[in-house]
């Protein structure tokens, strides 16, 4: 009886750390997603988590922790054990934003995280107009806005999101004044455009596609070439390369994760994305699949992301402290 207990004790406390090192992963992985359940970002992580579980042969549990604009999730993962069993699934810009606005915050993208994989430019933000309005492209918008500064109204998303910040970038680049009217998200912004209460709206390409197909709305510009709306030209092509806050989603781990563990995770995510059924599914949903896992790529993307958001003040980013 006593001997058995000693064996159990050894197995649990003595031997297992060695096992963890060799046999990663051998227990469920927690993927903390910093967005509310059901949104586009949550969905992509859920789809990936399910396939990832098959590849790694352990459970991958998605836990949503959207509070505090993702800061709580980021802090949780930044302070978690550096063993690869706690990962953060997040919009890269979200973590970059909080790191830029307050570099001393408990979770900093550069200081506290080890990037595992980044799905670069996973979906496009589109600027929409009404099909029955006189604006057919970005040039029309700019010339009209120059004539009547502040008169045109664009429905944008919440402060600090790319739906809002890209309009700010366009205003700066084209030196125009358009009134930004913030709404809770793509759907509300489009609803107000369809109702004729605003002149333009910023939305996700996937949500906008059916309305363009139905002939109610037209796409004026996208920030990255869209998988579902390939005909809409990018801001860059229309002369405004500064409008470039591409949305990327990232798997992040606490800094200091052993290299072999990073590699196992990165390889598994790479393999997962190539799974035909999932790939098809991601495509149907309109996701661009441009996965980066090499260390050089990841560090470059993170530096770019920080630089992009450094163009804004903490107020613009929605992270002013009281």
């Amino acid at each position, binding site marked *: 009886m006593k001997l058995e207990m000693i064996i159990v004790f050894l197995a649990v406390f003595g031997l297992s750390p060695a096992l963890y090192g060799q046999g990663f992963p051998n227990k469920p992985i927690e993927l903390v997603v910093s967005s509310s*359940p059901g949104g586009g970002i949550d969905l992509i992580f859920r789809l990936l988590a399910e396939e990832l579980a098959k590849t790694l042969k352990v459970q991958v549990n998605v836990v949503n922790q959207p509070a505090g604009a993702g800061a709580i999730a980021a802090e949780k993962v930044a302070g978690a054990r550096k063993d690869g069993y706690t990962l953060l699934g997040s919009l890269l810009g979200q973590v970059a934003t909080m790191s830029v606005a307050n570099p001393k915050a408990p979770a900093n993208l550069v200081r506290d995280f080890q990037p595992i994989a980044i799905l670069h430019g996973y979906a496009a933000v589109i600027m929409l107009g009404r099909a029955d309005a006189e604006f057919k492209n970005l040039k029309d918008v700019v010339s009209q806005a120059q004539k009547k500064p502040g008169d045109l109204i664009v429905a944008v998303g919440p402060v600090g999101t790319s739906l809002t910040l890209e309009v700010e970038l366009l205003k700066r680049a084209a030196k125009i004044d358009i009134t930004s009217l913030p709404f809770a998200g793509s*759907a509300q912004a*489009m609803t107000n455009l*369809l109702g004729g*209460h605003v002149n333009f709206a910023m939305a996700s390409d996937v949500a906008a596609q059916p309305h363009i197909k139905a002939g*109610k709305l037209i796409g004026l510009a996208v920030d990255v070439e869209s998988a579902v709306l390939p005909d809409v030209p990018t801001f860059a092509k229309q002369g405004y390369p500064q409008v470039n806050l591409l949305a990327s989603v990232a798997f992040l781990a606490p800094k200091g994760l052993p290299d072999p563990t990073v590699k196992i995770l990165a390889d598994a995510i790479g393999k997962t994305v190539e799974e035909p059924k999932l790939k098809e599914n991601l495509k149907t949903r309109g996701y661009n699949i441009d996965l980066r896992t090499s260390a050089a790529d990841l560090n470059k993307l993170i530096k770019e992301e920080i630089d992009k958001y450094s163009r804004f003040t903490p107020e613009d980013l929605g992270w002013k402290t009281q």
Partner: protein
Amino acid sequence: MDTLHSLALGILTAASPLNLLYGFAGVLLGTLIGVLPGLGPAGAIALLLPLALHAPPLAYLIMLFGITYGAQYGGSTTSILVNIPGEASSVITCLDGYAMARQGRAGPALGIAAFGSFIGGTVALVGVAFLAPALAELGLRFGPPEYAALLLFGLTALVYLAHGPMDKALLMALFGSLLASVGLDPVTGQPRFTFDILVLRDGVGLTPVVIGLFGVSEVLVNLHAHAGEIFQKKIKGLLPTLQDWKDSAMPITRGTVLGFLVGAIPGLNVVIATFAAYAVEKKISKHPEKFGRGAIEGVAAPETANNAASCSGWIPLLSLGLPTGSVTSLIFGALMIHGLAPGPLFIKNSPDIFWGLLGSMAIGNAMLLILNLPLIGLWIRVLQVPYYFLFPLIILFSIIGAYTAAGNTGDVVIVIIFGVAGYLMKKFAYEPAPMVLGLVIGPLLETAIRRSLIMSKGHVTIFFQRPIAAFFMGAALLMLLSPLLTRRRLGHDIIEKLEEP
């Protein structure tokens, strides 16, 4: 005729064994979620999303829809039995439902809630089948100024929610709105009253406040009561009597119409439909003083309205592809997984899905009625559980519920704070319902007014130039001024109080 034909076909599709099975699973799960405070349909659907890849599209969607309206059935159960709203849309049911339970009439209250839900849900369904495209277009005409005017009109309903002194009710509504201003400013994104506490950035959630204010405080208030004082032991009937039906017939009818209309306007949530339905009943009742003291109309109307509203709430999504809240966004996501992009052409391109879903809702509503009626006998026995078991359990479920709603420990703290606040409010005769209304309408009204003023560059005239906005502004003014003419009802309490020495 075409519509009826399509609907009949939809019912047939939904009646296939597989779809029936998924539908039953959905409504059963929905009922359970409704009964549990905190965990709402959005959380449950999120958990079931991974299943989307494996289940057949229609059957899967039927299940998700079943969860949403099933939750509206279950939400009233705990409101009536223990004064904890299972869903935010059942808050108002606490007022009269719980009062009925204390008088030994939990059975009729639960019964009328189930029948009302069935009628509201089914009639609204027929409404959706015939009117969806037209109502969707109407909904689009509501821009920020129209919302502002409509909500202002809605706020005037506040005065009917109180059954105590009016000044205290107004104070509570103000406090609710103030509480709602905690968090990020919806327009500028700047933090307000957050004291650099991260969880407060998202504001004070409706769910934990409601659980604390109603459920926890009720336990605290009753701590000193002796067994037998809280509920009348004698249970008077399991089902509504003929008189109950007579009293409820018109409230159910009005609740259906009101719920259906409010639900069809994107952005107004189900909670507002229930408050509006309650206020209307109290306004036109011949005995408004009975409200809050166990009037069956006060259960029938809001419980009907929340089902009708949750049904017509699908209109913006299904006929335009515009999700209006967390649940509809989740379903939008589920449709996307199956490559069924909801949009203006959805009904035309995927008629099998659209009509199949409507058909399943017809069947599901019937299933829920059959499921819920026999449960009444079981539920009312909960009230015979000794208090020293029941009360700790209520506290336990309140805390678990608040936590599971968002997985946020901050919410548990909020439950406890508002449990104590609710206790003090009851001791000093301040009512919680107006506060909840302030909490719900406050932020919507604020954003609507501020967006309108950004649109008009600061000119207040925007509220009176647009026809729909002008109409509601006029109606609100009329409501506010009417007591000057009648001296009854609206200002009654204030006048009475002033006339007291």
